[in-house]
């Protein structure tokens, strides 16, 4: 039996090695066949300059290999992904393998790590997961690398304060940003506001009137009562409205005690407000079962006048409709959240997207070199515009998007970045700058403490019931609060 197992293992290992060998060779050849140009030389120069103070990042790139697992970075199709790998090779000399699962990314990451698969870089976007990975011994300490890197330690490349997000409880930096993360806010059909002679809403009553008009006054002009005022797809996206009662999603520490503002009496009138919208048919009744895709489709197909979503999507919405019809009147615009009694607006800033180097990475040096490259101009261009001659062409200092590049919305994992020295060649998509200004002014990170996964189920259950009118808001909040207390998920 032992012999059989030994033979089987040997065959399996040999098979895997053969297959891996074949795969790498093919990619290597592709990359080698790709011509280099001035930009690649610049890139190499930028990268090596950026890492001049760092030994690892200075290693010659010629024989470097890199295995990346990510959700957003790369091509939009498997074919483009292969071209993306070749472009990394052209720009950095690193032979990269980019694995971008089509779905169930978090499961893929967990399965890969628990089965001992070795990746050099993994992209994540949840600080809760980062904290868990710290506890589970997954991460490499990057403090020395970041502080000694002339690229990453430059505050114009990444503001120094931002690094606090990626530190563990001992203050060690354990990840590196992959892009600038924005926030969510109400996004309105500005053309509908104009058509109905409505002003941008500021207060809860203003919002109610606007949403009611979107429902009742046929803003799309098709003569049918087929529009909704508001649609949303998850509880965290309603932050802009909850702001009017001074309520922040997830945990808020108050005098050293854990509280969840959505489970306090102050939330009752807000849930009642939503229930009123649902009862009057102003709010999309599918909001409980909606995913973000359905919500976006409603907005893009003139079925709803306001959604709650990311700042970047203001531009994407506008761009998508313009691509479809250059003469469209469609105009999406970001709205600020509603100020609370103290005049403060509370909006949600999303958890950052970041790279980790797993503790079992086989090529940490290549990973570090790539991380520096990713924050230089060529890296940012690759992550935003995409691949030269595929997504864009460059003549002198002038960039020109191809049809594919236009379709890809200048987003190959980095729609926005921290580096102030790198300007977007085409500017930002319409409406994005205003949305980002709102985020920078009012959006803050949410506090995710241990146990939030369990608490969130309870909060969502009762909040959505109250919002949809299935349960009296006061009763829902009381039950929510009692259940959270009984399970020791809040202190008061």
């Amino acid at each position, binding site marked *: 039996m032992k012999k059989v197992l030994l033979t*089987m293992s040997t065959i399996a290992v040999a098979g895997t090695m053969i297959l891996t060998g074949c795969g790498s060779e093919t990619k290597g050849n592709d990359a080698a066949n790709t011509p280099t140009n001035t930009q690649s030389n610049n890139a190499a120069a930028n990268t090596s300059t950026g890492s001049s103070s760092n030994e690892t990042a200075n290693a010659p790139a010629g024989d470097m290999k890199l295995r990346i697992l990510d959700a957003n970075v790369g091509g939009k199709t498997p074919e483009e992904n292969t071209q993306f790998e070749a472009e990394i090779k052209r720009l950095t000399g690193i032979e990269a393998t980019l694995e971008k699962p089509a779905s169930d990314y*978090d*499961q893929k990451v*967990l399965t890969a*790590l*628990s089965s001992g698969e070795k990746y050099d870089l993994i992209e994540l976007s949840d600080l809760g*997961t980062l904290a*868990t*990975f710290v*506890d*589970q*011994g*997954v991460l490499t300490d990057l403090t020395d690398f970041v502080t000694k890197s002339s690229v990453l330690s430059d505050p114009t490349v990444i503001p120094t304060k931002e690094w606090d997000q990626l530190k563990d409880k001992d203050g060690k930096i354990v990840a590196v940003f992959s892009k600038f993360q924005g926030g969510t806010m109400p996004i309105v059909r500005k053309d509908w506001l104009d058509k109905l002679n409505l002003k941008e809403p500021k207060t809860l009553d203003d919002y109610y009137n606007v949403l009611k008009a979107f429902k009742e006054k046929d803003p799309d002009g098709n003569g049918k009562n087929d529009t909704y005022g508001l649609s949303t797809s998850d*509880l965290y996206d309603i932050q802009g409205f909850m702001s009017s009662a001074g309520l922040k999603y997830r945990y808020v520490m108050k005098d050293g005690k854990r509280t969840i503002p959505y489970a306090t009496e102050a939330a009752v009138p807000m849930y009642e407000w939503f229930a009123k919208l649902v009862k009057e048919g102003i709010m*999309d*009744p*599918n909001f*409980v*079962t909606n995913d973000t895709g359905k919500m976006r489709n409603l907005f893009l197909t003139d079925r709803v006048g306001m959604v709650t979503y990311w700042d970047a999507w203001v531009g994407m919405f506008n761009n998508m409709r313009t691509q479809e019809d250059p003469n469209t009147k469609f105009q999406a615009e970001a709205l600020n959240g509603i100020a609370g009694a103290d005049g403060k607006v509370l909006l949600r800033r999303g958890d950052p997207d970041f790279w980790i180097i*797993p*503790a*079992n990475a086989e090529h940490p040096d290549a990973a570090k070199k790539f991380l520096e490259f990713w924050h230089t101009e060529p890296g940012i261009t690759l992550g935003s515009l995409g691949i030269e001659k595929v997504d864009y062409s460059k003549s002198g200092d002038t960039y020109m998007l191809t049809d594919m590049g236009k379709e890809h919305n200048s987003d190959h994992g980095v729609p926005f970045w921290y580096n102030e020295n790198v300007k977007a060649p085409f500017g930002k998509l319409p409406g994005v700058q205003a949305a980002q200004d709102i985020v920078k002014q009012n959006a803050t990170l949410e506090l995710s403490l241990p146990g939030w*996964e*369990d608490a969130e*189920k309870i909060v*969502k*259950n009762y909040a*959505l*019931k109250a919002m*949809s009118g*299935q349960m009296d808001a006061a009763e829902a909040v009381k039950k929510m609060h009692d259940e959270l207390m009984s*399970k020791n998920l809040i202190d008061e």
Partner: protein
Amino acid sequence: MKVLKRYGALYVMMAPVIAYFLVFAYYPLVKGLQTSFQNYRLMGDRPYVGFTNYSDVLHDSTFWDAMVNTLVIGGGILLFSFAAPLVIALSLNEVLRTWYKKIAQMILYVPHLLSWVVVGGIWIFLLSPDSGLVNMVLVHVFHRTPFNFLADASWARWIMILLATWKEMGYTCILFLAGIVSINPSLYEAARMDGATRWQQLIRVTLPQLGNTMKVVFLLNTLGILRIFDEVFVLRNPTIATKVDVLMMYTFQKGILDIKLGPASAASFFVLLLTLALTLVVRRVTRFDEV
């Protein structure tokens, strides 16, 4: 050695199947059992912690909520997905026009071929409160107000039971029809000569002769009731989660979402043991060995 020489070819043919089960069934099983006794970290040391994970799971009220949901939904599916196809198979057997019978079977069978992702998507759309077919019928035919079936906790379990029954009805129906076809026609002839009506033939001949098929179907369905997952995963939402989150969903949440692989493995071993116990009980009660 003689045996090996004689049956060598057969052993060689069996090897891939044995290898498949060893690699994809028994190795993960043993590994899972090991994990359930460890403080399992994704990397680094993984110390053994005895029965701590099992104890944690047993003291977790969410596990017991999931257990209740599993038994209610699984029990409902077991009963309905046994009775409904039986009734339809018996009814179809009475249909004389072959073309109608074949078309009916085909229509009934189609949902079985679709994944839960597709079926879930279809029903989320059909049950939608504004544009769903079900609510349009309720509003326009019965003059009722639209109802959000998938967001109402009181409907949640029924939806899970009825959709699972609908999806698998065609498959089970074919098993029953195959059983009915294999009944010896002389039994019906004898019954008719004794003056039995159609109903009496059904009760006294068809059903007793279908007994063995029914036992197999019941046992197969029993094996699956604690493993319901896909349907719940696709159709659940936060407002009905407390009523539909089943044991496999609990395992998924602990293991994949919360990254607590030790307790997740312990919970999955509870599911395994319960399935084993349930199967043994059903075998004993139905006298399965006499099939």
